């Protein structure tokens, strides 16, 4: 299954008041195209989606905050996961869509295939985590979504995905517009 299919199938599991932070590149474009708008669509700040999610989760403790990030962004911001492992806001959920490449820059390999995500997440002190090596059926994916989003603790789901066939167009909203629309909703 490809990243865009995973994000599209996430739609029915997300409530209207869930706040989503999506990492720069294809992930935020897919979140823009396939999930309820407006959300936080990052244009740059590679490595920071989890930190932004942490800040948002601390500011809005009554709301669910979902960070959707690619593996390149996750690995760049890896040290921020130690902070999340320490403070553990219960409303923060993270999905890592791992295609093992930098897709928008030409498909260069990341080092993600070296990482044992289950051991890593356990080592970070995150108690609720899962990893899907391959998505054999939609029901398996849906079950993983439910476990993640129903968790009463900080939770992380790592999913190995196939390479997307094409890169989507850039998000038409200007960054300031993204901020204003998101804050109006929040």
């Amino acid at each position: 299954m490809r990243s865009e299919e995973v994000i599209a199938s996430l739609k029915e599991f997300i409530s209207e008041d869930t706040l989503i932070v999506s990492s720069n590149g294809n992930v935020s474009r897919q979140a823009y195209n396939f999930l309820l708008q407006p959300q936080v669509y990052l244009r740059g700040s590679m490595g920071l989606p989890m930190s932004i999610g942490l800040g948002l989760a601390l500011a809005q403790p009554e709301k669910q905050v979902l960070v959707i990030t690619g593996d390149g962004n996750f690995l760049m911001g890896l040290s921020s996961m130690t902070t999340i492992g320490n403070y553990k806001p219960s409303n923060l959920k993270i999905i890592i869509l791992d295609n093992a490449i930098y897709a928008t820059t030409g498909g260069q390999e990341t080092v993600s295939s070296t990482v044992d995500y289950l051991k890593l997440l356990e080592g970070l002190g995150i108690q609720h985590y899962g990893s899907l090596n391959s998505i054999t059926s939609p029901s398996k994916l849906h079950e993983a979504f439910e476990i993640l989003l129903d968790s009463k603790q900080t939770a992380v789901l790592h999913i190995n995905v196939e390479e997307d066939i094409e890169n989507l167009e850039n998000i038409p909203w200007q960054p300031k517009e993204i901020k204003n629309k998101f804050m109006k909703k929040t």
Partner: protein
Amino acid sequence: MIKSVDILNYLSANNFELSTGVPCSYFKELLIELDNSADIQYIAATREDEAVGIACGYYLGKKNCFLIMQNSGLATIGDAFTSLAQLYEIPLLIFVSYRGLEPDKTFPEHVIMGNVTEAVLEAYGIPYWNMKGGNWREILDEALECMNKDSSVVCILVEKEVII
């Protein structure tokens, strides 16, 4: 000299509920006071750019967070400024210790950054103030007004033994 507790009371009165950053010895007392503060929580970030991410997320959640870091952190957080805080026009207040000035000559690791600190801020287009003591409330008033009016990042440079 400025008492840490007075600064925290000022910031709390100006609706700051969170702080984050990476420590500097110049902020040792301030960080102790933050630990004791019932009004402002401190999140210990691993890197300064991470702290910018946390503060920006907190602002997007409609609350205010200030940052604390050494001027060395200004070299780490360029992209967090230019492609996040400044790009999305997110107001941020950052206290930056001004290392590398004369008293720091025994710490060569700070000297080069100390020489270029103000030039770096000017290059980023970030307004900054050198907060030395007596008129600190006026300086923070002015910095916050600028931050809110322009939705901009503002930096407060703090030399050695200014905050106690």
